[in-house]
Every structure is written in structure tokens, then in C-alpha cells.
């Protein structure tokens, strides 16, 4: 299972698939992996992304205007799996597109595509029994969010059913960049460590090399989402892949080489 973080901190990179178009998403994904992303979150655009800030909302709207569907995201995952066998691949989605596809059909298709894990934004552990069974049947890692507002007993439940890594939300709120990280993130990671030996990735609001380094002090990986999506928006289709490669190298402080790693 290629969800692993070779260098600390690891990098989980999010993109909304289909923004600006499927072919460009493919190239951006390859560029992100080659520039040093350990795990890619392939975002399924949704019409009502209530956990997302304006940047990802706009990206979702663009992707939906192109007609991007869950099926397209799975097809992209299959291509990436062939081309970059060592990269971690996660489907990041709201629940309704999965329900419409059919939970079992979705898990079978994701396994077939070589997907490693699934994160459903609006699926919480209490509602997850069938969801977990389906993921287990198809060898997909369930990745759950842990929030600063989650009390310890919830963190224990989240840790118990998570595989791959646990996604710690850095603050209360929706996705989107922020100037500085709050103390919430470190507190949450320390609390999570009491319940799990899985890697902990911190996300929401991480946009600069300084944030990335700061998260590396206490977490195993950082998730970068809105900052990447905003850079894609700014660069336009032609320049987006190279722009994202530079951005990721910048986060890593230029330590890594840009050649495709043979992992």
C-alpha cells in the first residue's frame, strides 16, 4: 500500500479533478508526484461543497461545467497508478456522488483503478459501519478527519477505524488559506498520538514553506489543497503543471530533485 511518507514531513497534495479540464488535471497530478507529493488527493467535484471555502468552490464549479464525474476521477486514478506506481492515491469526495454510483460499485471500481484510500468529507465514524465494510472488502484505506472540536473519545473511535493516515484539521472552519497556523493543530496532533501509531497529516490553511516546515515539527505530513487549487486557477491550463511543480518544490525548500522517482 503506497500511502507512506518517505521524507518528513510528507506532502499530501489535493486537486479538484476536472479543473480546468481532465487532461490538465492529469498533467498536474504527474507534475505534483514528480515534484515530491507523497500522496495525491483526487477531489471529486460536488455541486454543494459545504465544507469548502471559495477557492475549492470555484474549482468545483469549473470542473462540473466540464461535466467531470466520479467515473472520470476513477479513470484518472487508473492512469496515474500505471504511470506512477509508487504514488499514494486517495479519492476525496462528498458522500452523495458515491451513493449515486453505489457504494459497492464505487469501492470495486476504486480497487480496480489501484486507489489506496478514500476520504468522504461528510462521513463520520458513527454512520460508517457499512461504508467501512465495503472499503475493507476492497482493500481501500478509510481516511477520516479529526477536528480540534473532536473530544478524546471521538479521536479514539476515529483512530481505531482509520488506515493509511489520520487527517487532522488544523482549525475549526472550511478549507482555504490563512496567514498563520493556530495552536489548535499541534494540540490535536498530540491528542491523536495517544490513540494511534498511524501517521498524522495536518491540513486546512497550509499554503507556505513556513507553514509546511512548522507542521513538520509536530506532524508526519501536511495536506496542501486550496493553495494548489488557487495556483492552478492563477496559472491557467498551459502553465498549471509547471507552476504546481515549482510550488511544491518551493514548499519542500527545493530539497528534492524534479525527476520522476522510481519508488
Amino acid at each position, binding site marked *: 500500500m503506497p500511502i507512506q511518507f518517505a521524507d518528513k514531513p510528507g506532502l499530501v497534495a489535493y486537486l479538484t479533478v476536472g479543473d480546468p479540464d481532465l487532461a490538465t488535471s492529469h498533467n498536474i497530478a504527474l507534475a505534483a508526484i514528480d515534484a515530491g507529493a507523497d500522496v495525491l488527493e483526487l477531489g471529486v467535484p*460536488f*455541486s*454543494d*461543497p*459545504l*465544507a469548502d*471555502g471559495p477557492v475549492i*468552490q470555484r474549482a468545483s464549479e469549473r470542473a*462540473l461545467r466540464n461535466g467531470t*464525474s*466520479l*467515473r472520470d476521477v476513477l479513470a484518472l486514478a487508473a492512469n496515474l497508478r500505471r504511470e506512477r506506481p509508487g504514488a499514494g492515491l486517495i479519492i476525496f469526495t*462528498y*458522500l*452523495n*456522488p*458515491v*451513493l*449515486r*454510483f453505489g*457504494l459497492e460499485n464505487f469501492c470495486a471500481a476504486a480497487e480496480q483503478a489501484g486507489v489506496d484510500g478514500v476520504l468522504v*468529507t*461528510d*462521513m*463520520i465514524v*458513527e*454512520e460508517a*459501519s*457499512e*461504508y467501512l465494510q465495503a472499503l475493507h472488502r476492497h482493500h481501500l484505506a478509510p481516511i*477520516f*478527519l*479529526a*477536528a*480540534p*472540536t*473532536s*473530544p478524546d473519545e*471521538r479521536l479514539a473511535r*476515529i483512530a481505531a477505524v482509520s488506515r493509511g493516515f489520520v487527517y487532522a*484539521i488544523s482549525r*475549526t*472552519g*472550511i478549507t482555504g488559506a490563512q496567514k498563520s497556523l493556530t495552536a489548535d493543530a499541534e494540540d490535536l496532533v498530540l491528542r491523536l498520538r495517544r490513540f494511534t501509531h498511524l501517521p498524522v497529516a495536518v491540513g486546512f490553511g497550509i499554503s507556505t514553506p513556513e507553514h509546511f516546515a512548522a507542521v513538520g515539527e509536530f506532524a508526519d505530513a501536511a495536506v496542501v489543497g486550496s493553495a494548489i487549487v488557487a495556483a492552478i486557477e492563477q496559472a491557467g491550463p498551459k502553465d498549471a503543471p509547471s507552476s504546481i511543480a515549482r510550488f511544491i518544490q518551493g514548499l519542500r525548500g527545493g530539497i528534492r530533485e524534479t525527476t520522476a522517482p522510481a519508488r
Partner: protein
Amino acid sequence: MAVTTTIAGRFGPYGGRYVPETLVAALDELEHAYAEAQADPDFHLKLDELLRDYAGRPTPLYFASRLTERLGGAKIYLKREDLLHTGAHKINNCLGQALLAVRMGKHRIIAETGAGQHGVATATVCALFGLECVVYMGEEDMQRQELNVYRMRMLGAEVRGVSSGSRTLKDAISEAMRDWVTNVRTTYYLLGSALGAHPYPTMVRDFHRVISREARQQILEKENRLPTAIIACVGGGSNAIGAFYEFIADKDVQLIGVEAGGRGPQLGEHAARFSGGAPGVLQGTYSYVLQDDNGQIALTHSVSAGLDYASIGPEHAALHDSGRAEYTSVTDAEALEATLLLARTEGIIPALESAHAVAECVKRAPKMSADDIVIVNVSGRGDKDMGILAKELKLSGAE
């Protein structure tokens, strides 16, 4: 997906809690506080007093003799929720939840609104209790229910326009949830319909049960028997579940929910979830949802902002599947016609939402016998709709 869960708040397979993790602790806290309040006689005493002296309960059950005569069938009674303070049933729930927010020590209230009636009721209770109030409203709804925007501002609320998606109720709820997830430690989300994550559908229903509790007693007093049918419009479904609830055990009473048929049966032209939708998850709850083949939520249309929503309260989904309640729809044109009819036979201008229930009554009553009794829940009054009515019914020209 067949659903198994460890969470309460299921109506058959429907309901549940599908939210970002950040909100779960707040929903747990709310569920706990609500259970405590329910068990506290003092809470009920305060609420009953406010409902009576402030909101104007009980509302009359009025025998509409001229409408009955005109339609020539069943005897028609109107449950006059339109006579409540702020002009709709929404105040029932807002008073209950505001008392709860105060108990919980929350001083910032947020809400969504479609037609603006829930927004006005929320702004009203916030003024009454001295609470900060922010109301999210789709920009399309701000335009078509402009009067209610002014009322909210008059009451000291901040109205935040929402420009995403269809710029209606669904988008206002998403934006309110984004606010809540950000300010969850200090903010109370006063949800206005029997929708959303547990415990909202149960709690909102409980605060509106008073509608059917009164109506049941009133009809027994007036007619010494139960009605043949209760008719209510269904957007999210708060007035309907309130009007149905105490009659659910009375198996012979037909429960009829009326959805917005809009301009026609094509996806995007209406808000008839049961004829055009499929089970799915939107904004925290599992219910019928208007959606496309990829699970993207469909756009909706109704002349009535309060019915213009892609999903429906989960308890209605269960009542639908069990066959206990029947759901139907009427078009924009039929609702407008019914508004005019009720205005001119009874001197009552219903809200466009409630006019959908009246329109269904217009269809059914003539086919029923004089022994039948129909109660129509007039959930709100039509003052807010005068702009739309003036345009659609061409009231500005010479008649």
C-alpha cells in the same frame, strides 16, 4: 445504501448525521441540551407562555364556509398559522430554539432563510432575547422576498446574500453551515426546517407539533370527529410535519403533503422530490434528493421561495415510503390561482407556499362528500408575496 448506524434520529432508513467532523461535537452538545430542556418543566412553561402571549397561540381553526360552498364537496377548515406573530408558523420553532440557545449560553445566532419567514422569525426572537443575529439568504430569494429582507434588517439582523449555486435556500444552508463550522464554539445554528443532521429534524418537528395538537382538539370540539384529510405544503417540511404529527396514529386521517410542481416535470423546473428525486445525502441528512445521474444536486424552481429546495425532511421520506402520508405536487400556476381564490372567497391572502396546500384542496374537495372534513394548514400569510402576485396576477393594470 441500506443504512445501519449507532446514531439516533433515524426515520426508517432516512435521517442520520452526515456532516464534517468539526460539527459533530456541537451536534452532540445540542442533542444533549435539547434532551435536558425537554425534561425540564420550566422550559415548557416558558415556551408555552411565549407561544401564547408573544406569538399568539392557539391559532384558530376556521371554517371556510364560502370556499366550501364554492368547491361544493368536503367541509374545509383552515388552520390559521398565518395569524401568528411574524406571519407564519416559523415562530414556533424559533422561540423554542432561541430558549435553547440561551440555556446553552450561546449569544450568536445564525440562520438560513428561503422565503424569508424563518429569517424574520429568527431576527425577531434574537431581538426579543438580545442575541446577535446573522441570516444567510440566496440573492435570488433576496430579490423576490425583498420585504422580508427589510424586516430582518429592521429587527437588527445582518442579512448576508449568498451568490453561489442557484442563489436560493440550498445555497443559504450551505453558507450557514460554513459559518457554523468556522464559529462553532460560540455560535448557535437556528435551522428553520425539519432538515439537516440529527437532532434538527426531530427537534424542529417537536416545536411544530403544537399545530396538530391544537388542530386535533379544535376539530373534535367543533365537529366531534376527526378530519378526513390534512393538507399541508412541503418545502423542507416543517409546517407539514407539525400539522401531521398528532394525526399519524389516527390511521383513517389522510395526510397529504404538497410539493412545488413549478413550471413542469422536467428536472430543474420544479421541487417535487418524491416524483423526481432519489435517496441521497444533502446537507447532513439522508432523504429524497433531486439529483442527476452523477449525484450532483439538481437546480430547482418554484414561484414560492419556501418550497424551492432539492431535498425534503427525512421524516417525510419515511412517511412517504410507508404510505402513511401521500405526497403530490401543484404547479406555480395552480398555486397562484388558489391564492386569488382564497383571497376572494374568504378574504385571506395565503403565502405562496401555503397556496400550494390550498390548490390541492381545490382539486380534491369537489370530489369528496359533504360528510368529509379537510383541514388545510395555512402556514403563512401572503404579504411578503405582493410583489410576485402583482406581477403574476397583473394587479397593477386595470381589471
